[in-house]
């Protein structure tokens, strides 16, 4: 009798989480373009940005700067994820020092994969990143939950880990609102997506490419012109 009850409960939980998973993945939701006047766009925004390194950091800084009216509005809280100190300094010099109306919080994340690393080294390093980043993303996700928020990502590999944790947290916590992950593929990708892009295509709530022809092969992708 008790076993039967347990089975029913487990089955219900199982079904609930399967449904929740389908709900959490962006494929079954649509964020169509268009104007929606009923949305209240006031109030401070919480933004998580990840500075990949080198060219990724460069493009992210440009993106944030170009849309600063919204992203860096007065009163916003900006969580800055970074893997290398150079990117953090660049961010402070070019963005933080010029926008004192925002609160900036820096969160270091271990790099998922060094360029040209071997398979085993890559594997160990990915595992370390997974564990360390969960703690970081969990806290950021809790801090942003219930408030208007965005997660801006543009590569490289560490972004996959970040995006997956945001979505896993959203999936397991039934009351967690959408993570609002925005992925902007690099300007350097013209005819094919990067490895990170290929994965995040299935996870990001808004997936953006900067060359129109990528939309032909990737119908979920949105194109707004060059954004950086």
């Amino acid at each position: 009798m008790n076993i039967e009850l347990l089975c029913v409960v487990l089955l219900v939980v199982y079904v609930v989480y399967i449904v929740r998973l389908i709900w959490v993945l962006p494929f079954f939701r649509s964020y169509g373009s268009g104007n929606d006047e009923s949305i209240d766009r006031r109030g401070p925004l919480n933004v998580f940005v990840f500075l990949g390194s080198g060219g990724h950091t460069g493009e992210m800084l440009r993106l944030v700067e170009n849309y600063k009216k919204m992203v860096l509005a007065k009163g916003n809280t900006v969580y800055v994820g970074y893997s290398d100190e150079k990117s953090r300094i660049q961010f402070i010099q070019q963005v933080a020092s010029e926008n004192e109306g925002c609160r900036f919080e820096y969160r270091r994340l271990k790099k998922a994969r060094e360029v040209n690393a071997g398979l085993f080294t890559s594997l160990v390093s990915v595992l370390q990143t997974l564990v360390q980043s969960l703690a970081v993303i969990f806290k950021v996700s809790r801090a942003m939950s219930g408030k208007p928020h965005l997660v801006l990502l543009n590569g490289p590999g560490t972004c996959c880990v970040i995006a997956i944790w945001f979505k896993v947290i959203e999936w397991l916590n039934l009351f967690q609102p959408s993570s609002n992950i925005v992925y902007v593929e690099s300007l350097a990708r013209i005819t094919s997506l990067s490895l990170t892009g290929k994965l995040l295509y299935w996870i990001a709530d808004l997936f953006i490419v900067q060359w129109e022809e990528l939309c032909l092969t990737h119908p979920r992708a949105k194109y707004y012109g060059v954004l950086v």
Partner: protein
Amino acid sequence: MMVVMASKTVLVTCGATVAFPRLVDVVLRKKLLERLSDAGFRRLIVQYGKGYETEFEKRLDAMGCVPTQCSLDDSVLGTTATGSCCRSFVPKGLEIVGFEYSSKVQDIVRIADLVISHAGTGSILDALRAGRPLIVCVNDELMDNHQQQIADRFEEKGYVWACKPRESEIAECLSRSQSETLVQFPQAYSAQFENDLSRLAFK
């Protein structure tokens, strides 16, 4: 009558990641320096990239360039502009300023009248966003073919002149830059994107 600007500046930039010796090597050839000078340039700034300092100075010495007082302030080049040096290419009175890398490259671009850059997106955007005419030189020895792709695509659209690090090709781009005007690179702001972002954030 043609008016020659007081001090036209050309900037050659190799990017922060890897040095691009072949580009610097080609630009520093006598014929090209003469061409630059004939086109009215009085100052050549070269950001040559990591580990190329000794080679750079050797090249200048070999051409008989003499040390000179730099017309650019240290504050313009940036405090982190390591290994900077300044020489003069005497026969043409062309000032040559070289440095490894600077965090102020975006500002230095603004004092240039022409930019010759490697095909990295960062350097390309620095020049185009500053509205500077740009010659993009593709490092065809890199394994990564994105640089070739991006250079081709930008040239197709008329935003840049593209070439390989060969004297004849750079010379040709240089003469094109003196007679042609580039298509203006579209601005990065999209109201639609901003709208979609706020729909997502504030829904």
